[in-house]
């Protein structure tokens, strides 16, 4: 058994996309036909909008729109669609720490378990810090994120005879709405692009899911404070990881870590980490609660608090 066997699904996705093979193709093969049995006449649900994925395998709680864990994207394609289906999901996330809060909404569409398109809108509320900085109480930074993710190899879930993960590459274009303020704090740009490579594997033997993401980014606080700065203006590699332990068919607990650059002289930035519990009361709904440590944000140190997210998937 070669680890490459998994890549067959890649070819299958191609045939679906190209529409080259009709479902009845092998019914015509040379053998003499007897009347088909009931089982042979049985067909899968014909709709292209599927809900065939196994529970919790489409990611739990996106932050930047791309399917994955609470802090970092995974190599899985979001939504409930399998390789011959289209899936979609929508989420709302709120993060509340001592001095700030973040509201985050978005939707994604997954095509044939191959390609994922996502959009998200984040609104970062500075509460009293806004007043202290002369911006006004409750001053907000908003950012729009458009993402694309392509599964390039591997099967995180079904290829349990291989330890090799599923790989995906992704791009996130982010645009912040506060160019003038970002300029004043030393950010170089109000928009930027992140590039990432993710590897995700479900180790079913051990009821564990592991993810590692390498991101190239110049975003300050994931872009909420713009892109690039006086300390550095270049894309830098950052590692992000998640580990989740499946406790039952619909409950997982885990932890995540996300390295971040530190580009702004006046607003030091720390890595983020969290511990979470995800619960999927049905295949279409998942709820995530996390305790997140976000470190220094602008002038307030040691920010931590609750991260709550709800996701609806089709």
């Amino acid at each position, binding site marked *: 058994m070669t680890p490459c066997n998994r890549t*067959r699904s890649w070819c299958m996705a191609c045939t679906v996309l190209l529409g080259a093979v009709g479902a009845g193709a092998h019914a015509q093969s040379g053998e003499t036909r007897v009347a088909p049995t009931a089982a042979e006449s049985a067909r899968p649900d014909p709709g292209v909008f599927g809900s065939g994925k196994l529970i919790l395998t489409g990611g739990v709680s996106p932050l930047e729109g791309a399917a994955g864990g609470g802090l970092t994207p995974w190599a899985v394609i979001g939504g409930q669609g399998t390789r011959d289906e289209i899936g979609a999901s929508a989420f709302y996330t709120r993060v509340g720490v001592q001095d700030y809060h973040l509201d985050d909404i978005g939707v994604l569409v997954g095509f044939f378990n191959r390609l994922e398109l996502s959009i998200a809108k984040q609104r970062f509320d500075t509460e009293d810090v806004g007043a202290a900085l002369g911006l006004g109480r409750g001053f907000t930074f908003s950012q729009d994120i458009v993402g694309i993710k392509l599964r390039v190899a591997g099967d995180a879930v079904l290829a349990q005879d291989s330890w090799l993960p599923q790989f995906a590459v992704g791009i996130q274009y982010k645009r912040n709405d506060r160019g003038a303020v970002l300029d004043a704090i030393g950010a170089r740009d109000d928009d930027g692009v992140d590039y990432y490579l993710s590897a995700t594997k479900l180790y079913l033997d051990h009821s564990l899911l592991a993810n590692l993401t390498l991101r190239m980014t110049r975003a300050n606080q994931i872009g909420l404070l713009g892109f690039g700065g006086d300390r550095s203006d270049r894309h830098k590699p950052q590692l992000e990881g998640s580990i989740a332990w499946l406790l039952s068919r619909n409950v997982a607990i885990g932890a995540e870590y996300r390295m971040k650059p530190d580009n702004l002289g006046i607003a030091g930035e720390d890595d983020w980490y969290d511990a979470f519990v995800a619960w999927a009361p049905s295949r279409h709904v998942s709820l995530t609660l996390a305790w997140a440590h976000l470190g220094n944000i602008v002038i307030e140190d040691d920010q931590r608090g609750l991260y709550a997210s709800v996701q609806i998937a089709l």
Partner: protein
Amino acid sequence: MNPTWFPRLLATAFALAAACAPARSLADENPAPAHPELLPVFDQFGGKPGLDALMDDFMIALVDDPRTRDYFAEADQKHVKAMLSEQFCVILGGPCTYTGKGMKEAHAKLKINEAVFNALVEDLQKAMDLHRIPFRAQNKLLAKLAPMHREVVTMP
């Protein structure tokens, strides 16, 4: 580092995937590979009697589920249950012999896609829950069954 590494990485990833694709062998896989190390899991399933009882509820779930009903409603359910019980018994290191067909042969004439495959897995999970088989033990069995999707899934 600058962003031009990314297209190169992408190209490498595609080249790798393409190079791997033809490596698929056409020979049928063993439908019941024995895993002696899973003997403790076999016990958690309640041995062969436990598996036999599990199959009864598994089949009830399959016939109840609109996604899988048409495949099993008029099949020789008794035979399929007996074969599944033997197959799982061997896989879990139990003292059985699998006397059924290969997975490719058994499913070749059926129209099974990945969603239907996952539906069957879900029904099996429900049946295992019903029989109070510990979640981690369930996953050890499922880990051995999941790769069979390559032979069982016949479409597109």
